[in-house]
């Protein structure tokens, strides 16, 4: 995926260390967000069919829910939701969402909104931007320091 300028600028604005961990990244996002984040492992029944992740914005904190799966993939889902936060997406009002969940009764009046990561393609503009930034963040997270070659390796031509 070609990295957009928005993604590059957003990643740069985070001032992350050279080889950040996921907690470094979460810390930076929380700082920009101004609230703490709580992460929840979800299921297909709690998130909805075809939904892999969800960010719920409440007045006091944010909740990031991700579908249980392979670790790298679950992290990517989290990165996608963090990207919504970083890109300043406002989300949709929570009213009527997920009838049986804890938040179903909170409603719009408390300023609660949500965004999700669906696997339906094509993505709309906001989802596409969030997904692009998620790949950009993943690239930063998975970057590994180059192991410095020993003298013998250099001489041997490695």
């Amino acid at each position: 995926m070609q990295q957009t300028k928005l993604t590059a600028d957003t990643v740069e604005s985070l001032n992350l260390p050279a080889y950040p961990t996921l907690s470094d990244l979460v810390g930076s996002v929380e700082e920009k967000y101004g609230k703490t984040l709580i992460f929840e492992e979800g299921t297909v029944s709690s998130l909805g069919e075809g939904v892999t992740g969800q960010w719920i914005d409440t007045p006091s904190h944010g909740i990031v829910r991700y579908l249980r799966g392979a670790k790298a993939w679950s992290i990517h889902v989290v990165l996608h939701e963090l990207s919504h936060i970083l890109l300043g997406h406002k989300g949709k009002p929570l009213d009527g969402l997920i009838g049986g969940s804890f938040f179903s009764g909170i409603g719009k009046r408390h300023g609660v909104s949500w965004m999700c990561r669906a696997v339906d393609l094509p993505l709309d503009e906001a989802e596409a931007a969030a997904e692009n930034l998620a790949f950009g963040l993943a690239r930063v997270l998975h970057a590994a320091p180059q192991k410095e070659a020993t003298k013998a390796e250099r001489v041997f031509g490695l």
Partner: protein
Amino acid sequence: MITAAFWILTAVFVVRLYLVTRWGSSTAFLAAIGIGVLGLFLGGVVVPEAVIDAHLGGVNVLHLVRNLSVTIAVWLIRDGIFAAYSLDASYQSRFTHRPIAIVLAAFAIAIPFSCQRFGPTASNFVPENVQQLPVFIYATVYMSILALLAMSVFRICLQPQMSLPVRVSSRVVAAGMGLVALASVEEIAYMTAMHIDVGGPSVQKVLYVLFSPLFYGGVLLTSLGLGIPPAVKAWRRLQVRDRAALVFLTATLGRTYWGLSYAAWLASILASLCASSPSARLYEYIIRSSDHKVALSGRATPVLAGRVLDRVQARFDGGVGSLESVLPVRAAH
């Protein structure tokens, strides 16, 4: 065997030259390999010995030039390996590591050669002329110097080494140099038996026959050993493993997961092959594939593709750490 050694060493030389010019690799063994290629070329691999020798006067000077090339090449290999294994440059102060040493060695080989009664180009120069004392001395001095140099390389190549590619390369070079040293000693025994006529024709025949497989087997192994580091470097730089996985996944899953047209699928395979960062594209592929695997059921993944996905997935999983250990996770509901 000499032909195989020539072409392998030539390939190693070309790859190393490319790595030096393109990626700034060390030039340590470049001259050694280049001169080694010249030495093997003078063995009549591509152009017959008689044709080359005719250009040098037609009196077997080719034999001298070839042997000097081999001696200089082994001396340079030894110098490169000492440079790699030594903590500092103090080894360079030793006499045998100074350029004057190889110049004197060249003279020690060339002087007796020049004292012989020169004859026309001979395909078996040493067996045909070893009765001449200058030729016997020339060949013995050459083989002795070569044996000493080869043994020196052999010994240092067996020293402990942390880096696996360097260790493997060194061990293969050591095996090659061990064979060269053995061949050199064996050739001295053969020439001595011929010169003073001892051992009888059968022993002399056995000694004669043994030389080529030992010597050129050694050259072949040395060539292979010196080819290991550039091969490893090229493997790493080209990210061959990731590229292969990406191409394979695109080929096997591209149409199923993305519903690509045949032309788009072919273009996608080509793009995977030429990807500047196969690792990044592989990650993207893994995520997309997992989306389909996890969220959209009913799409079968071929067994082999599934295994490749799992292996790549495991590599990315290992790079970031556990979610539970880095995130304030609530219990699933």
